[in-house]
């Protein structure tokens, strides 16, 4: 009888955690949870799953900041181009808008060229020169391999010093797939 009731409760446990139930139903589930360990366990698992998903999407601040800055300026630039396109028919431009139109052709061409270059780089680049930093501590990593470890490559903030960090034993996240992650540029 209790098992039957629990299976009903479990159907509502998600909306309960999300605060999407009517106050009366929510109160009823709250009452049940007080006395039922297995439903409480299910709720706690759900909450931890939710928390893990959110964590998984949390970039490092550096990455997020640079991506969002890039996005903002790309949108702004795109809008300017769109506006110029809608206001200026191609035959009515003065020298300025002519140059602007050139930019419009050149920018996408450059982007296309960069993409092609990028693809060729990716496909044909041998597994060399994975990392390159500049300055006094300039360092190029030609190849890197190993077993039973995961490697992170960093550069330090001030002097761009390259850091090769290997994790021999990652707890508590160690699993079978945590063997070797090959780097190939």
């Amino acid at each position, binding site marked *: 009888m209790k098992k039957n009731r629990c299976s009903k409760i479990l*159907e509502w446990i*998600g*909306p309960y955690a*999300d605060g*999407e139930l009517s106050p009366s139903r929510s109160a009823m589930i709250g009452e049940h949870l007080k006395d039922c*360990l297995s439903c409480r*366990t299910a709720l*706690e*698992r759900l909450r*931890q*799953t*939710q928390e*893990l*998903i*959110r*964590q*998984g*999407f949390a970039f*490092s*601040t*550096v*990455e*997020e900041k640079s*991506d*969002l800055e*890039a*996005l*903002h300026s*790309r*949108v*702004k630039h*795109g*809008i300017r181009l*769109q*506006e110029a396109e809608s206001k200026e028919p191609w035959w009515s431009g003065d020298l300025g808008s002519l140059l602007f139109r050139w930019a419009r052709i050149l920018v996408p061409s450059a982007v296309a060229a960069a993409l092609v270059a990028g*693809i060729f780089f*990716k*496909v044909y680049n041998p597994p060399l020169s*994975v*990392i390159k930093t500049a300055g006094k501590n300039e360092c190029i990593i030609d190849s890197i391999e190993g077993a039973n470890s*995961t490697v*992170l*490559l*960093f*550069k*330090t903030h001030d002097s761009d010093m*390259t*850091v090769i*960090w290997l*994790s021999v034993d*990652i*707890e*508590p*996240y160690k*699993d079978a797939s*945590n063997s070797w992650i*090959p*780097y*190939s*540029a």
Partner: protein
Amino acid sequence: MSEDLEWVRRSQDGDQEAFSELVRKYQKRVYYLAYGMTGNREDALDIAQEAFLKAFRSMKGFQGGGGFYTWIYRITYNQTIDFMRKEWRKKKLEYQDNQDLTEKESPIMAVPSASNPGQDMAQKELNRVIMDAVQSLPEQHRSVILLREIEGLSYDEIAEMLRIRKGTVMSRLHYARQELQKVLMPYIKEGEIREKK
């Protein structure tokens, strides 16, 4: 919300600065939605950019009924689906296969400021498991879980955005969470649950 309306009104009159404010306010959430759907930062940037440009082009037709954010989410979502269905995407994936790490995360990064490499590595490993799990969900379930867990939309808002019934939102969410929980079970701390007995 009322500031949204003001910015929307001014954007409709062609005020680029007002639109820029809307971009600033919603870019993070738009970007995360695209990133969650594609699992790729570069693709997410492209999609988010195109979504905002499309919104700007269609600004005059926007009625303002469901709020700007629902509207921009819908545009982003549709943009993402279009993007994912394009043939070239598959080709691109072929040569990404062996370089997940280099494509999704730059192989070299600045040392994070709040953690040491050991913690950072463990977190990155976990993030990869989570991202892979989300990516392995069917498209319909992935979108619902992202809109709920990452964007924090209510069931009604998700239903409106995806143009599905609220009951469908609930069942998709239920399924997606179950699937994710299976994969993430090793990372769920049972000890904490037992302590709360």
